[in-house]
């Protein structure tokens, strides 16, 4: 899709009738999102416990770190016993696991996937590439710090992080969620303008609405 495809235009249907298409409104929702406040205190405690014990991961295998997700699932490390499971669709996932370097091209897709997830949602970034660019820090087409573009809950250091450290990172995330600090989704929406400015600064061909529901 290019930017021209998103312009309002008249098209002729197969039956010969001409009609107007406005892709931004017809295909996307342009309404601005709003933060969702937590439920009352006691209920929220219970909810946070349930959330922390049932983390569904959307694995975004952009870089080398994605390799470590396989041993995490299989017998040696078996993350399932900690209530961690994998989901193939952003709609149902709570945790976006961004692994390794993020090229500008992929960043766009990562943002879309993140925005399609439901509140509350968390981000975990694997490897030094997401922290400071790692060995790609002066590359022309990768980003250097993920949390300029998405609110990151936990960074796992290493190049690449071993499954043990990812598990430790997940435990850290659970602690954060239980303490009620897993509010990345709200942070993101409250500072949407800042995040969007950062994102648009680096993604030159911005061809999607400001928030992808």
């Amino acid at each position, binding site marked *: 899709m290019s930017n021209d495809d998103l312009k309002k235009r008249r098209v002729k249907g197969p039956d010969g009738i001409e009609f107007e298409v406005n892709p931004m409104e017809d295909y996307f929702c342009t309404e601005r999102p709003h933060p969702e406040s937590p439920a009352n205190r006691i209920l929220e405690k219970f909810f946070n416990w349930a959330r922390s*014990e049932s983390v569904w991961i959307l694995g975004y295998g952009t870089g080398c770190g994605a390799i470590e997700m396989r041993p995490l699932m299989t017998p040696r490390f078996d993350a399932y016993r900690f209530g961690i499971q994998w989901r193939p669709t952003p709609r*149902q996932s709570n945790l976006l696991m961004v692994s390794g370097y993020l090229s500008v091209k992929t960043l766009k897709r990562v943002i879309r996937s993140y925005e399609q997830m439901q509140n509350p949602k968390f981000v975990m970034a694997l490897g030094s590439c997401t922290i400071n660019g790692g060995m790609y820090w002066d590359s022309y087409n990768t980003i250097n710090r993920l949390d300029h573009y998405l609110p990151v809950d936990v960074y796992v250091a290493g190049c690449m992080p071993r499954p043990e450290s990812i598990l430790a990172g997940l435990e850290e995330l659970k602690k954060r969620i239980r303490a009620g600090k897993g509010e990345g989704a709200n942070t993101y929406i409250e500072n949407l303008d800042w995040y969007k400015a950062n994102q648009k600064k680096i993604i030159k061909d911005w061809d999607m609405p400001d928030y992808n529901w």
Partner: protein
Amino acid sequence: MTFHWMQIVYALVSLFIVLNVGLVIQGIVRKIGARLGRRYGIRWYQPYLDLFKNYAMRSTVSHGIMFYLGPVFRLSGGIGLFLFMPVIYGSAWFQNFSGSGDLILLAYFIFFGTLGMALGAGEGGHPYSAIGITRGLSQMTAAEVPLILAIIAIAVQYQTLSVTDIVAAQQGSILNWTLFTNPLATVAAMLGFLGSMMRSPFDVVLAPQEIPIGPPTEFHSNFLAVLQTNRAIFPMAKTILYVNLFFGGATNWPVLIVKVFLLYMWPVFIGVAFPRFRVDQSIRWFLRIPALIGILAILFI
């Protein structure tokens, strides 16, 4: 059978019990699967946590009215199936509304949820949903054939469509079970059973590896939680129906739970032992041997 208001309360109690048994069995089954794969596996109460978590999600995105109704239809398919058959034979408490419905209605309920789900997922507009639905409906239709043939066979055999009467006819000795009086129908139905339990080799509908993840791709938060609730109730309800029709019903909860658990293990066992069929293969499979056995069952009553 006359209707008392108390029956509604009884029905809710039995629904609650079955929901819990369903969730626990779900957890145990996944645990067994994990142990076979030499993993420790999820905790047995993980399905509860997932359910709570999904009900606790804060935001939902809707795609239209049918999108709301899809999960509701699916759940009412499961609950409807459950409500119109006797859970515990001879118990006033757990008769549900078995006096008001018959086998035809139950057969309809088995299909109803899938149809509603198809409409709902269709409105989600995700291409993977559409693929999942096409696969699901075709396979479901094929899997229903042996089941319906078996139902016709036992309806002719017992000269009734009432599930309560069919259970009543099987009381006494174990040899009165349909399993022994009409083995062909039982075999056909048991093969059809595999089709709707969403396990290998017939789980290409959800196939998370290739079409993430079939019809529910767009369903999330509370919608998904409703679907999960049904995921606990529907297989239980269907298994209880099988216990009633072919395995002599049950006169108390322990017997029911044991029978249901053993029956539930049948598709699980097949599932861990066999790889996945493609849809065209599975349809051909259902329409050959199981359907043939079903026809023979009707011929040899």
